[in-house]
């Protein structure tokens, strides 16, 4: 039976799920936290608003209260004596903003906590309870429902994708392999790429053709993003992952390629096997990892360099939380050897402000634009003309932010940038 999105408020269930989230890590994290407040300095929702409620560890206060009441001596004693406040439905209502609107799960706080707490992990856990209780943003609920029912959080249908692919085939004069049994790689997409940045598909087709990669799309599963993870519903997340896994295993591919999109990578690469509770029969690679491998093997060759002053924005889920640290930089250097790095780049980069489902959440829009001031400042320091990133969601959020603040910087995807400089094939025999 397909899981459904909880839209009605069900506080009891929320508490029950919250209780079930407390594992070894959570217990250790709460035991270790000394409320030093350092995580606030790492969170762009705090630094750009000054609102103390957005201190990362305060965002999981409902979970801490439950843990204290039910797992600690003083808590049990205090609760028994009626001295500790219970976790109430009002808390859920109040903390919905802190749990969803003001957290992109970017994990920057997890990198600075002196006692080593992974606060992003804790918030992700708390989202399970909030999603179960129906205290989740309407925008995310809608996206999740569309992902379940239509197969894409943006409501993109297979037909629409096929139309885009038709355009791409016309543009490139190349055939886009669909459902090719026994291909090495199965590529995934995010709806955002299909709808807003179809150049990504075109780039893939051209690069893979030039490099002689054996690959395919699947008609059964092309969507890589996972709203279940963003809203925090493991059952839905597992359902969405299993669609991809089933399709890939039916086609018998060796690898599944995660698109540029950040959360898609976390979902399919790191969370997926744990969600469906078994290892895959294939490997997952991020498109940048694959491109970097092709570069190293000499199969990806470019010509010319960018004359504009560029910088690279590290998508949190790919770099900090995904571990794809070096490939984007190796690839950037191929076409923009003098690209400028932001002040905090790499694994300590500041989030665009729209990850973790925040960009799908209309209620968070004002806050998101405020938080974007951090990226704005980073970019102003560099005085660049163009920004390259590797996540369709980062890209759309940054484009909106730049427009909002009237900044004249154009944004492009790294794969697309590489395709632009793709050297003409020397002859297929050599590449094969």
């Amino acid at each position, binding site marked *: 039976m397909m899981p459904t999105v909880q839209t009605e408020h069900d506080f009891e269930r929320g508490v029950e799920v919250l209780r079930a989230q407390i*594992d*070894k890590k959570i217990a*250790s994290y709460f035991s270790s936290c000394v409320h030093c407040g350092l995580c606030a300095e790492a969170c762009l929702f705090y630094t750009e608003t000054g609102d103390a409620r957005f201190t990362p560890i305060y965002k999981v206060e409902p979970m801490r209260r439950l843990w204290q009441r039910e797992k600690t001596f003083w808590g049990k004693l205090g609760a028994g004596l009626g001295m500790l406040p219970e976790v109430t439905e009002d808390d859920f209502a109040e903390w919905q903003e802190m749990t969803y609107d003001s957290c992109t799960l970017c994990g920057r706080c997890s990198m600075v*906590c002196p006692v080593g707490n*992974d606060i992003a992990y804790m918030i992700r856990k708390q989202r399970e309870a909030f999603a179960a209780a129906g205290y989740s943003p309407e925008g995310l609920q809608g996206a999740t429902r569309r992902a379940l029912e239509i197969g894409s959080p943006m409501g993109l249908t297979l037909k629409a994708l096929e139309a885009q692919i038709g355009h791409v085939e016309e543009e490139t004069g190349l055939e886009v392999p669909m459902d090719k049994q026994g291909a090495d790689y199965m590529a995934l997409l995010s709806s955002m790429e299909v709808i807003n940045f179809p150049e990504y598909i075109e780039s893939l087709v051209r690069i893979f053709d030039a490099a002689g990669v054996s690959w395919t799309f699947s008609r059964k599963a092309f969507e890589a993003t996972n709203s279940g993870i963003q809203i925090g519903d493991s059952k839905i997340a597992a359902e969405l992952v299993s669609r991809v896994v089933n399709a890939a295993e039916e086609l018998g591919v060796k690898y599944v390629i995660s698109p540029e999109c950040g959360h898609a990578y976390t979902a399919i690469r790191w969370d997926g096997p744990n969600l469906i509770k078994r290892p895959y029969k294939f490997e997952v690679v991020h498109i940048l990892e694959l491109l970097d491998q092709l570069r190293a093997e000499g199969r990806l060759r470019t010509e010319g360099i960018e004359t504009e002053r560029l910088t690279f924005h590290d998508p949190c889920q790919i770099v900090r939380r995904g571990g794809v640290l070096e490939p984007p930089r190796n690839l950037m250097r191929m076409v923009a050897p003098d690209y400028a790095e932001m002040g905090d780049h790499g694994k300590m980069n500041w989030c665009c402000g729209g990850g973790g489902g925040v960009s799908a959440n209309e209620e968070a829009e004002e806050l998101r634009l405020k938080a974007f001031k951090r990226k704005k400042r980073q970019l102003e320091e560099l005085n660049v003309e163009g920004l390259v990133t590797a996540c369709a969601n980062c890209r759309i959020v940054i484009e909106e932010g730049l427009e909002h603040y009237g900044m004249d910087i154009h944004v492009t995807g790294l794969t697309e940038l590489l395709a632009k400089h793709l050297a003409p094939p020397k002859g297929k025999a050599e590449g094969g």
Partner: protein
Amino acid sequence: MFLEFVEGPLWYFSAVVFVVGVLWRLVDIWRQPSRTDLAVPRGSGVPGALRTIVTRSWTAKGFSRGATFHLVAGYMFHIGLFVLLIFAAPHVKFIEERILGFGWTPAPHWLFMVASDLAFAGILLLWLRRLMHPVMRKISTFDDHAAAILTFVVMLTGCLALLKSHDSLRAIHMLTVCLLMVYFPFSRLMHAFTFPVSRAYTGAAMGRKGVSA
């Protein structure tokens, strides 16, 4: 008479509560459910855990600006307290006579002065920031204040008894020490034992992803 009580039965009681309590808390963390990571790791978890246990002792690159206060006051307090606890002459003597049966060279007086001044200044600054900073006000709980004040009182009574001339002063210090030891396992002070556990969990998870956290 009173001194005999606090250094005798009360001390033994507190020590037992402390040891059993701390162990119980650690076991309790271990008793919670956990699941093995099924994703194919990029790197190994163990070096990641060990690395994070060490590297979280200083700030991430580029993050020191927002953390200056924490770094300075935090280290002042923790280093000072560590030297006081382990190397103050009366403590060494107490450890030798009552706990371990052997001692070590205690800190000279000047080092004791420096350590205690660092510790006192550090804990005062940290606690005042807790009272003053909007973030700290928002996230602080009763336990945070209780732990800070109790630790301060223990340190204060200890330094007041430094002349070693009056049993009453020694007894007051011992009494507050016993209070602290009984309070310890049930409070935030547990971070002294659980911080490597937390660092290890996060370091391992990040290490498996190939990120040195």
